[in-house]
């Protein structure tokens, strides 16, 4: 057998596999969305409930992602730059959301804030709604997505060490200056990557959000939940697919930005 055959077989297999399981479904979504024409596709977004789902998704991600960025940077900073007791416990805890099934994550919040608990009853009596309301969606989203930023930053900051920070200290800089002038510029690409992944997951999260949402149309339906509702209702199949193209596009944009960042990091761009 000539030497070149083996690589060709492997390359073919890889592309075949990718095409079958990734590109084909993606193409199918777009094809289905546009099946009844462009006008129907556009009209799918004019639906009142569709629009509110988009807004809710943006709101949820808009709260969850910044909070996770602040937490992620703070946690990665203290884990990599300082020595303290309980560091390993903290690192393990950060991974918890990855290890727990999203459904269970959602149930945790229902168990904490649900009406059957004393806390939930107290909240209800004060007219504070968490479960089956926007706060619950945000909480569940934060929980599911919080490892993304930290996980991205820890290896990066560990590799960079702390000598640049020490140099800054020896030059008289305080914590604030050190963070903004030294640490942040060094981690900005990694941070951006973490934010993008975190955002993609925050917008696409289904499981945990589904449990706490209650699927109230126009109120607690995010895009993924809306897609499911519409699809299950058999009302207008193409409408569900039209919304699905939004999420798929988000994934594509994420991939492109990720590639750009990786390229930039590789070429040591500033």
């Amino acid at each position: 057998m000539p030497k070149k055959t083996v690589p060709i077989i492997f390359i073919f297999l890889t592309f075949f596999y990718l095409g079958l399981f990734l590109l084909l479904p993606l193409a199918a979504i777009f094809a289905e969305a546009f099946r009844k024409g462009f006008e129907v596709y556009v009209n799918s977004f004019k639906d009142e409930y569709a629009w509110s789902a988009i807004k809710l998704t943006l709101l949820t991600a808009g709260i969850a992602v910044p909070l996770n960025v602040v937490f992620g940077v703070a946690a990665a900073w203290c884990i990599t730059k300082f020595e303290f007791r309980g560091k390993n416990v903290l690192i393990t805890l950060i991974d918890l959301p990855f290890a727990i099934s999203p459904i269970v994550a959602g149930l945790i919040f229902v168990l904490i804030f649900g009406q059957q608990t004393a806390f939930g009853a107290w909240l209800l009596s004060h007219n504070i709604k968490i479960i089956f309301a926007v706060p619950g969606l945000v909480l569940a989203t934060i929980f599911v997505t919080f490892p993304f930023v930290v996980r991205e930053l820890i290896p990066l900051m560990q590799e960079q060490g702390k000598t640049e920070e020490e140099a800054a200290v020896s030059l008289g800089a305080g914590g604030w200056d050190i963070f903004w002038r030294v640490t942040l510029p060094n981690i900005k690409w990694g941070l951006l990557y973490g934010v993008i992944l975190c955002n993609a997951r925050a917008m696409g999260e289904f499981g945990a959000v589904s449990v706490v949402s209650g699927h109230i149309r126009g109120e607690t339906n995010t895009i993924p939940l809306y897609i499911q509702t519409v699809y299950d209702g058999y009302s207008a199949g193409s409408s569900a697919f039209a919304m699905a193209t939004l999420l798929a596009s988000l994934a594509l944009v994420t991939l492109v930005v990720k590639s750009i960042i990786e390229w930039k990091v590789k070429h040591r761009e500033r």
Partner: protein
Amino acid sequence: MSVEVRNITKRFDNFLALDNINLTVPNGDLVALLGPSGSGKTTLLRIIAGLESFESVDGADILFKGASVVGNRVADRRVGFVFQHYALFRHHTVYGNIAFGLKVRRGRDRISRKAIRERVMNLIHLVQLDGLESRYPDQLSGGQRQRVALARALAIEPRFLLLDEPFGALDARVRQNLRRWLRRMHDEIKLTSIFVTHDQEEALELADRVVVMNKGRVEQEGTPSEVFHSPKNAFVMDFLGNVNLFHGRIESGRVSFDRSEVVADGNKQTRFFVRPHEIELLPENIDNTGLPAKISRIQLAGAIAKIELVDSSNKEIFVEMSHDKYSMYKFQNGDSVFVVPKNSIVFPEDYSI
């Protein structure tokens, strides 16, 4: 006295990094902390800078110009620290790196942009990096980065300059040049400086005073000539250059070799240390004082001739002599000769090389 270190002990878990160090650095001097890796020299430097803590025992103190700085934060100590791998800010230009310590000043100490620019450009000129101010660290050579690190440390007008292995990451030629340049600059600005090195040649050539460290202790402190010519113990002698160890006895001021390693008369038996350039090689055994040995290798490249020999018990002996002397005898590989020490030092304590 400029920098004083008193009773400093440092432990990393169970490892004793510094064992009750006392040290005084005279004003305006360039001092080398010399020692093998693990001797605690870098730890000591970092403790002086305030980057590392130490055991707070009675009398433990760090003083700058007579005043204790133990309670001071690193930022308030105003020491210029040059890190081993420079630790330049990779996202700042040469200018940004050097200006950093001035830009982060707050309150009363704040200085104007114009004043910053003036000082930074002066420093860039001082370290001979004119025209490179908008380069980033990864666009510079090792020697250039080194000088940026130095200029950055000098920008804050430090009271002292501390350098951790300043030439460690450079190739031999650049190292030589930078070494001389640093010495000239020190003579010019007269800033009390302490540098850490494991390279004895660097310490002896560059420093006004050398502090030889080993296993967390100061073995000897003195001028380069003092530590080289009158080492206090075997470690210092061995660390400051090649050395040959012989067994023998001293009889009425003269050294004679023990041909057998086992000597019955224990109290007269001794070990003595001889530097390679203080050994004479003779083709014949005059006065019966020489140790017979065989030449195993001759290395003639360089300023001196280096000859390796083995004695009857297969121990290696290193000898250095001028080319003039070498050409007088015309030794050849495999020649049998006699080794005669011209000058040797005897240390009482037990030490194995």
